[in-house]
C-alpha cells in the first residue's frame, strides 16, 4: 500500500477548513498536543501539520487565484528519514506513512532541513519534531464507520477538493483521478518522489471585460424614461 492524498487545485476555495480540522483531530492524536505560542497575543504562532497558501497564476486578464494546501507528501524517497540521526523518523513499510517517534526525537531540526516541502515543524514545548500522520490513528480505527476511516482534512473539505486512497492500486479512485486529470507531484527535480498528487487548475475561457457597447435610440429613450420615474 502507498497511502496518500490527492488535492484538486481547481476546486480548492482556500477556506482553511482542512487545516482547522487537522489541528483539532491531531491536537489530541498520537503526536499531540500541537502547541500554540501566544494564541491570543500580538504574535500568534504554533504547530500545524497542514498549511494553505494562496498564489496568483499568470497576469491580468488571464490571472487566476490558486489556493494551495500543503502537508507531508509521504515521499517514496524521504530524505527526512535518511538524515535522521536518532532513528525517530521512519517510513512504514506496510503503507508508506512517514512518522516521527516522539520518544526518540532529540529536536535537532535536521529532518526539517532535508524536507523541501516544509512539512515538519518543531514543537517548542515538547522539543520534538511533529508532522502530518495521515491521521494514522483514525484511518485504521475499526470503531469508526468505514466512510469515516479517512484523514480529518479529507472528511471536512466542503468543496471535496481532497481525496485519500492507495496509489499502489491502479484502479483506486485516487489513481484513476490522477491519470485522468494529469496530476503531478511537487518539485519532481529533487527526486523525493512525493506520494501526494496535485490536480492542475482547469483552463477556462477568458471572461470578456470590455465595456458594454452603447445602445441605439430606443435604448437611450428607455434610459431617459427610467430616470424620470420616481421610485
Amino acid at each position: 500500500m502507498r497511502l496518500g492524498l490527492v488535492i484538486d487545485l481547481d476546486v480548492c476555495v482556500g477556506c482553511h477548513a482542512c487545516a482547522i480540522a487537522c489541528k483539532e483531530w491531531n491536537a489530541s492524536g498520537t503526536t499531540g498536543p500541537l502547541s500554540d505560542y501566544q494564541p491570543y497575543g500580538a504574535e500568534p504562532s504554533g504547530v500545524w501539520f497542514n498549511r494553505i497558501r494562496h498564489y496568483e497564476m499568470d497576469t491580468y486578464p488571464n490571472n487566476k487565484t490558486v489556493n494551495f494546501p500543503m502537508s507531508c507528501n509521504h515521499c517514496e524517497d524521504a530524505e527526512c528519514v535518511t538524515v535522521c540521526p536518532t532513528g525517530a523518523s521512519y517510513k512504514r513499510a506496510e503503507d508508506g506513512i512517514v512518522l516521527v517517534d516522539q520518544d526518540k526525537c532529540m529536536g535537532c531540526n535536521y529532518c526539517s532541513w532535508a524536507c523541501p516541502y516544509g512539512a515538519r515543524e518543531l514543537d517548542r514545548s515538547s522539543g520534538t519534531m511533529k508532522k502530518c500522520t495521515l491521521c494514522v490513528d483514525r484511518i485504521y480505527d475499526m470503531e469508526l464507520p468505514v466512510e469515516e476511516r479517512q484523514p480529518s482534512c479529507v472528511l471536512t473539505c466542503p468543496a471535496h477538493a481532497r481525496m485519500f486512497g492507495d496509489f499502489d492500486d491502479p484502479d483506486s479512485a485516487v489513481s484513476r483521478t490522477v491519470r485522468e486529470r494529469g496530476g503531478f507531484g511537487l518539485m519532481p527535480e529533487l527526486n523525493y518522489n512525493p506520494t501526494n498528487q496535485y490536480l492542475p487548475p482547469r483552463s477556462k475561457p477568458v471572461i470578456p471585460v470590455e465595456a458594454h457597447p452603447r445602445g441605439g435610440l430606443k435604448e437611450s429613450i428607455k434610459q431617459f424614461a427610467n430616470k424620470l420615474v420616481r421610485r
Partner: protein
Amino acid sequence: MHPAFSVIFFTVASGAGFGLFSLLFIADVFKLGGGFEREQLIIGGLMAMALVVFGLLSSTFHLANPKNAWRAFSRFRTSWLSREGVFAVLFMPLALVYLASIWFDAPLWLRETSGFLTAVLAWITVFSTGMIYACLKTIRQWNTPLVPANYLALGYASGSLLLLLGAVVSGLDTTPYIAMSALILSIAAVLKAIYYFWISSPGLGPTINTATGLTRAKVKLLDTGHTHGTFLTQEFGFQIARQKAGLLKIVVFVLGFALPGLMLVWVFNQQGGQAAAIVAVVTGIVGAAVERWLFFAEARHVVNLYHGAQRC
C-alpha cells in the same frame, strides 16, 4: 538559514581541534623545527581534544530535546550527523592511546600507528561535519563538494595557526611551521573564493513554478496563510542583504587569511614574537567564525519558494 551560534562555535572549535591534532602528529613524525618535547606534545594534544569536547558539548545546546542526544549514534549507516558523532567519539580513545604512547615512551610503531589512525579519523570527522550540510538537496548553496573541502581546509588552517603559536612559545625553529601554515591558508583561501564564485550564480534549481507545479505561467504569492511567523519562517526565513554579505566576505578574507598571512611574515622576520603568533590565531579563528556565520546566512532553503521567493 538561521545561523545558530552553538553550531557555529561547534564547527569552528572542533574543526580547529581536529586540525591541530592531525598537524601535531605530522610535526611529531617529522620532528619539524627540531620537534616538540614530550610534555609539549601532551599539552598540545590535550588542548586539541579540549577544543573538540567543548565543540561537541556546545552542539548539544541547539537541540530542543537533549535528553535523547545519546540516540544520535544509532543511525550511522544513513545519517551524516550520526556518523559525525560516532567518528568524533571514536577519535577520543585513539587520541588518548597516541598521547599515552608518547608519555610512556611506547615503541615507535605503536606511537606512529595510533597517531596516524587518529589523524585519519580527525580528517574523516571534519569531512562528515561538512557532509551534514553538503548532502542536503534542498539548499543549493550547501549541496556542493566544495563544502566539505572548505570545512577541512579551514579546520586545518586554524589548527596550523595554533600549532605555529605552540612552536613559537616552545622556542622551536618556526620556519617549517610558517611554511605549513602559509600553504594551508592559501589552499583554504582559494577554496573559499571558488565557493563564493560557485554559489553566486543560481544555476538550474527549483523555482516557484516547479515548487507549485504551476509551470504554465508566472506565479506569485498572494498570501502565506499565517498571521505571524511559523517554525518555517524562523528556521529558513533568514535573509542577508547582498551588500552586507559582500562586506562580510571581505571581512572573511582579511581576518581569516590576509592578517594571519601577514603575521606569518612577521614571525618569519622575528618581529612581534609571540604577540604576532597570538594575533594570527585570534584573527584566523574570528575569520573562520565569520565565514561560518555567512555560510548559514547565505543558505536559502527551497521552502522559501512557497513563501514567495521566485528561486533560491
